[in-house]
């Protein structure tokens, strides 16, 4: 370990991607382009062991995610295990398909919190984005049952040029549905969102307007609705500390049991990931090559290495550095201190000004080219 952080931090959150199966096909899905198939998913007993190891390691929050986690037949059992271990269980769901039918059983199993995705406010728009007809009424019925049961509800809205005009509407919807929290999360451009970037990228004026709307609503709804805002990287001054810093707070386990420091880490092809079926979670956290690769600050290059923000944003996102700069150890080009930052911003502006191409919808077994976009270089003009 490096000298600045001699003590290995204990992870706070476990992102349990129980399955990649999902009735929705959102074009900004954070899952990888190569989705795991049902046949390769971990079994119930293995997930229960992983949860037990996670609790011992210091994990407090478990995010039951996917895909659509309620597509797993054992979602109730897995939730029960969380409750038994004292782990805080957070169901990250689309609310469609079989979600509503399982909700009461999940409540009885001790589920702590529900995060429901909403793709848009207008039903037609929402269903176009999610790629599933009749999804919106199912989501509203699901939300209604969540609040009836007295479970805390968070609405999650991923914002892009196809729904950025609905930010005010998302806020009203959250109030109407009785949510206590709303996430207004501008798209982060990894995975499917990276492929669809030109269809999704809003322009700077739209982004600024959306931020103003959120700030005004926060004041107006203080004590009633908490609004978390994730601003889009490409227009930011400093990058976000991805997952709270590489290997510092979060463990991500894929449906097949591969353990990642963040959900997009597989795009860094030279990393060696370990599986929960081969190693204990504790060993993976402390010793696996993927977790040690970018933990701390020793791996950093300039300008990160001597930057006084290096332990605030931890160099930004490694996956984005690889995708945009062609080097996973480079400064995240979302950072204004990166030599590539101006190009990233110009690229965002340019794409936002063009007519959006059609979405490439998320599908299992698709043959989307992972290398659809070449990294930027400092010399090459855009």
């Amino acid at each position, binding site marked *: 370990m490096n000298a600045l952080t001699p003590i290995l931090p204990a992870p706070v959150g476990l992102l349990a991607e129980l399955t990649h199966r999902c009735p929705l096909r959102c074009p900004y899905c954070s899952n990888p382009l190569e989705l795991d198939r049902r046949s390769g998913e971990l079994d119930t007993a293995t997930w229960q062991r992983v949860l037990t190891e996670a609790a011992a390691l210091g994990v407090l929050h478990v995010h039951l995610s996917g895909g659509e986690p309620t597509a797993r037949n054992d979602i109730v059992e897995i939730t029960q295990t969380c409750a038994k271990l004292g782990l*805080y269980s*957070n169901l990250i769901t689309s609310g469609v398909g079989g979600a509503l039918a399982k909700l009461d059983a999940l409540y009885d199993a001790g589920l702590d919190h529900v995060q429901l995705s909403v793709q848009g406010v207008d039903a037609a728009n929402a269903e176009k984005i999610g790629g599933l007809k009749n999804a919106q009424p199912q989501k509203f019925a699901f939300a209604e049952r969540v609040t009836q049961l007295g479970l*805390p509800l968070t609405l999650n809205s991923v914002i892009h040029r196809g729904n950025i005009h609905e930010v005010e509407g998302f806020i009203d919807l959250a109030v109407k549905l009785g949510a*206590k929290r709303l996430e207004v999360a501008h798209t982060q451009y990894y995975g499917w969102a990276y492929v669809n970037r030109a269809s999704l990228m809003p322009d700077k004026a739209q982004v600024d307007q959306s931020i103003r709307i959120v700030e005004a609503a926060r004041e107006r709804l*203080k004590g009633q609705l*908490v609004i978390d805002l994730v601003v889009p990287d490409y227009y930011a001054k400093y990058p976000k500390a991805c997952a709270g810093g590489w290997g510092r707070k979060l463990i991500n386990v894929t449906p097949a049991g591969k353990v990642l420091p963040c959900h997009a880490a597989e795009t860094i092809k030279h990393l060696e990931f370990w599986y929960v079926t081969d190693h204990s979670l504790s060993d993976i956290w402390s010793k696996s090559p993927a977790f040690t690769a970018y933990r701390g600050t020793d791996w950093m290059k300039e300008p990160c290495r001597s930057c006084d923000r290096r332990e605030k944003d931890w160099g930004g996102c490694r996956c984005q550095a690889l995708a945009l700069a062609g080097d996973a150890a480079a400064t995240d080009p979302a950072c204004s201190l990166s030599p590539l930052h101006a190009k990233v911003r110009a690229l965002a502006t340019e794409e936002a000004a063009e007519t959006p191409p059609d979405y490439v919808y998320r599908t299992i077994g698709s043959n989307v080219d992972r290398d659809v976009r070449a990294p930027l270089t400092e010399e090459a003009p855009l």
Partner: protein
Amino acid sequence: MTAPFPLPSAADAQRLLSPEEMEAALRDIGARRYHNLHPFHRLLHDGKLSKDQVRAWALNRYYYQAMIPVKDAAVLARMEDASLRRVWRQRIVDHDGDSPGDGGIERWLKLAEGVGFRRDYVESTQGILSATRFSVDAYVHFVKERSLLEAIASSLTEMFSPTIISERVAGMLKNYDFITKDTLAYFDKRLTQAPRDAEFAIDYVKQHATTPELQRQAMAALTFKCNVLWTQLDALYFSYVAPGMTPPDAWTPGTGLVPDADTPKAAGTGTIGPTDVPRLPRGVRLRHDEVRGQYVLLAPERTFDLDANAVAVLSLVDGIRSVRDIAGMLAEKFAADRSVIEADILVMLNDLATKRVLER
């Protein structure tokens, strides 16, 4: 008639002080006796009062504000020099304004309305404490009965007010969600008016207190004025903080307010008061984190690290006990004043309520 108030230093009373020494002696009175030191103000500025306690302050203090021009008119009436009167009359203009809707009294009424009062109720002064009335009236009588030097010297508390105002504005904006910058507009003006007034008064006092006896009178006058302010806070503390002995005719929470002053915005939200029963809703759990050796509050997408005090409070939050019950139990456990604990924990509980992890 001799001043019934202790003088700053017996030795200083025996000789003629230089103007600089005189000013230092006057400032020393403020450093030791000005009401920014009063426990009630500490609670007010640190956000430790409930909304009703802030209301009691705003209501009572209105009487002081309303009588200031009466006091200044009495001083003015005793000035035989037109140049003095021209300066002094500005104080009356500042407070009364040049037209309806203007001036310091109006801005204080805005403050009282900002915390939920009906304007006519405040103006009637029928809910103020007798001690407030007695203190303020004593000030008006003082400037009528004593020498002009003493009357002017008694206004010198303005030398100390910019500090208390900036503390108060910053503290109140930060700590009370029902206080806005508009509500506190009164203090914006006073930040420039008070130093201007004080400068004139201190020059006058230094120039006219020409004997040890006159200097002593000026110091006693300022001491008296500090006590006028202090006594008002004593009365507020006694009636509305601890021991909570409110005189029969004085304001009690719920009266004199506009109809919807305390209507919560939605179920489970709004300000938590002493008689409310707080509870951790489903999805918020207090848990001991063995790995890190501390208690944490687990909430949707968040973890709050808790200190020992927060753990002591939250362990007693069970959806049955009121804030007052919890404060009582903690007061017994730590042998401390219940009202102080109650004020403290209300701040903490309301902060958690704003974050939507505590309800009533």
